[in-house]
């Protein structure tokens, strides 16, 4: 237990002691705020205080510069010179995830769904648990925290399951995501040198790069946690098989979606329940606006969040109507149609999200059908090898997502005869080593 905490602390300290110090401070704050909320007769006051402090911390690190540079430029439009100073802070690793969990913890105590943790060691272990440090999952304290009290025993099957998860995650990250990354970076990095449908391809590849990268990381984190004897949120569930945008968000970054559902959408929609269906549309819009903001402090993400909010709002309003239309088709056709429409929306939405500035978005969508530069179609300087291997990776993901009867690979492999199993392991690792993007291509020249 102490060792685990030490491992987590060491993990965080790689990114600098300042960040670690801030995280430890937040951990300490939430430890006491949880106890305080529990003891208070009017729980709302300490809860509000705790949430405000947590949000403020996130605001300072993530949004301060964005917000005040916008304020500054707004004032300069009005010919008033006000200069809010920009802060040059290094964002502590994982702070966005950290704050969400802290808020969730405090709210759960106020809702009496969670009793405050009295053991600081357990509490700190939960918050700083290193497998979820970088990109979540946004685990709920009520699910993960009790596991720190369980006695961990060596479990052969569990460890091999974890190792297989890690290998699969590495495959997705190194072979698929990083491969696709070459193309995506080239196009988005030199946007104005390209035009035409290549942007759709870039958006398409980016969607899969993001999925392979993120879910690959998730599998690795899950694998490490599994080896250590913890079960965490499964963050992805075949998102490209989603039949609606609503369904997509139940399959993509699930721990975040459910967090937003529990702590934003649900309270807001119930609070505005007298508005009927429009209360829900309002709630979903607010939820995705916040989600966009959380993803990144820029106009792009705000618009991206609103785009998704509009899509979900549309789905809420038209739910009954769409249902009646789908009744005219066979069940399979209806499903395939829904998947296709959702898939196209997903790609468009991520094409949007990857752009650097709103101006770039406008450029992409106004030039996507501009065929004036056909010679530059695939002449991007990205090697065919990257494109072919990346495309094969995309195909693999799509098969795994669209094929409904796909078996649980982890189990299927575990049940193979020993010779086949070992050959598979061996091949898979060799494949990752030789086909993955591992060695840095840039060689930093030292003196001499």
């Amino acid at each position, binding site marked *: 237990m102490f060792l685990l905490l030490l491992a987590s602390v060491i993990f965080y300290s790689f990114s600098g002691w300042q960040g670690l110090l801030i995280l430890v401070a937040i951990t300490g704050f939430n430890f006491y705020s949880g106890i305080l909320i529990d003891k208070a007769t009017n729980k709302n006051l300490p809860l509000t205080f705790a949430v405000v402090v947590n949000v403020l911390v996130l605001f300072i690190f993530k949004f301060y510069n964005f917000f005040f540079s916008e304020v500054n430029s707004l004032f300069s439009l009005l010919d008033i010179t006000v200069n809010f100073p920009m802060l040059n802070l290094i964002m502590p690793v994982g702070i966005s995830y950290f704050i969400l969990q802290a808020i969730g913890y405090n709210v759960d105590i106020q809702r009496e769904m969670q009793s405050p943790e009295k053991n600081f060691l357990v509490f700190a272990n939960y918050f700083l648990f290193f497998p979820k440090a970088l990109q979540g999952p946004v685990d709920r304290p009520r699910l993960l925290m009790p596991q720190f009290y369980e006695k961990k025993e*060596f479990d052969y099957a569990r460890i091999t399951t974890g190792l297989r998860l890690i290998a699969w995650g590495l495959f997705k990250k190194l072979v698929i995501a990083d491969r696709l990354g070459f193309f995506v970076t080239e196009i988005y990095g030199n946007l104005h040198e390209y035009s035409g449908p290549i942007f759709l391809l870039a958006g398409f590849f980016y969607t899969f790069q993001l999925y392979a990268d993120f879910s690959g990381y998730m599998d690795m984190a899950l694998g490490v946690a599994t080896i250590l004897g913890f079960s965490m949120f499964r963050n992805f569930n075949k998102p490209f098989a989603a039949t609606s945008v609503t369904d997509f968000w139940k399959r993509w970054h699930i721990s975040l979606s459910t967090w937003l559902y529990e702590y934003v959408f649900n309270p807001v929609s119930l609070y505005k329940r007298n508005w009927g269906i429009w209360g829900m549309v309002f709630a979903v819009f607010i939820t995705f606006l916040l989600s966009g903001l959380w993803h990144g402090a820029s106009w792009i993400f705000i618009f991206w969040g609103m785009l998704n909010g509009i899509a979900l709002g549309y789905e809420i309003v038209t739910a009954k109507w769409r249902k009646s239309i789908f009744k005219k088709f066979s069940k399979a056709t209806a499903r395939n149609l829904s998947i296709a429409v959702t898939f196209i929306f997903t790609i468009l939405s991520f094409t949007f999200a990857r752009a650097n500035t709103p101006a770039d978005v406008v450029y992409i969508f106004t030039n996507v059908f501009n065929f004036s530069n056909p010679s530059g179609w695939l002449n991007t300087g990205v*090697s065919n*090898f*990257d494109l072919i291997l990346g495309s094969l990776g995309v195909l693999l993901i799509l098969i795994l997502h669209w094929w409904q009867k796909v078996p649980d690979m982890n189990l299927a492999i575990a049940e193979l005869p020993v010779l086949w199993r070992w050959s598979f392991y061996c091949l898979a*690792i060799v494949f990752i080593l030789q*086909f*993955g993007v591992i060695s840095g291509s840039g060689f*930093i020249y*030292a003196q*001499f």
Partner: protein
Amino acid sequence: MRNSDLMKQLLLKLLLLSILVIISASAVKYIFYQQKEDLPWAFVSNQIYLKSKIYEKKQNSVNTIFIGSSVVRRGFNPEVFDSLTLNWRKPHSFNFGVNWMGTPESLYMIDHILLNNSSNLDYAFIELSKLKYVDYANLHTTRATYWYNSEYMIFTVQAFLESQTTKWFVKIAALLTHAVSYLENAIGLDHWHIVTDFETRKSRLGDTLDFVPANYLGFDALAGNPELDTEVNAEENVQIGIKKLLNDSSGLHKRKLLSAAAFADAERNIGLDKVNQVYLEKLISLKKELLDRGIYPIFVLAPRADKRQYEEVLPLFYALPTQNRINIADSRKYPELYSVQLSADETHLNKKGAARFSEILANEYLKIMELRKSGEITQ
């Protein structure tokens, strides 16, 4: 079975799997790598690749070459050198200095440029370097891993173990980084990308090659050659380097004092007994091989070295025959090579400095030639 037994079993299986993976990866790499014969050894860095291509073009005229690090790259001006040695056999020299190049990578380089090529070469200057390890920032890069083969790995391990001047923790770090790089090379880490990407890069660099001026002889006065490298800010970077040096030249001054002290000690035979026999034997056998091919090797001590370099290289230098070595590192003899006026930064010379460097080299070279002419050297 008990848990501890299961744990042992698991660890054993993982070990076995790792060995299997290494064997099969090496096999895959070996089989497919051999088929790719047109993949040149120099594909690893633009600088090496382009220099080797330019040298290839000029192979018929070039008869003198200088192999070394960026100190050589930015210090040896073939034009100056050639013009000062006209009264002897007319040299056409080429600067094969490459950033960061040192032992053992430079030995591999010598193999490929000097020994494996039919050439018109008469003379080869070779910068003497300490045994290098792969520093952390460059670990896992293609450049760091491309040259390893069993022969060089064995030499590297033996030479590091033999070294009396290298501290134990440096030895451990060096052996570890070399072992990792060797292993990465053996199992073909990210191998397919390198192989397939080569075609793309070749065509891109081929275009670059067309822009190389006809009189380019490998000398780059700037940190990067904007025409050959991707480094676009070479000119700016030099300005930054000079500014930094003008602000604080204590580092350069230290190097000057270090050089004076090292050579003063050497003259009194202090520390010269710590010869790295493995390294020395390698140099001597290299020398013999080169002579067999009609190439006369001259080992050079370049200025502005650090402490470990002097400790390791000076005993080697003095163990080599006088007619095969040139020392232009001694700050007592050549204080100007340690002056701010001739510097681009703490370790590199500017254009004026390069002229002086080449002039001194030419003078020393002529001395050796006189000796050869008068028949005092029978080689």
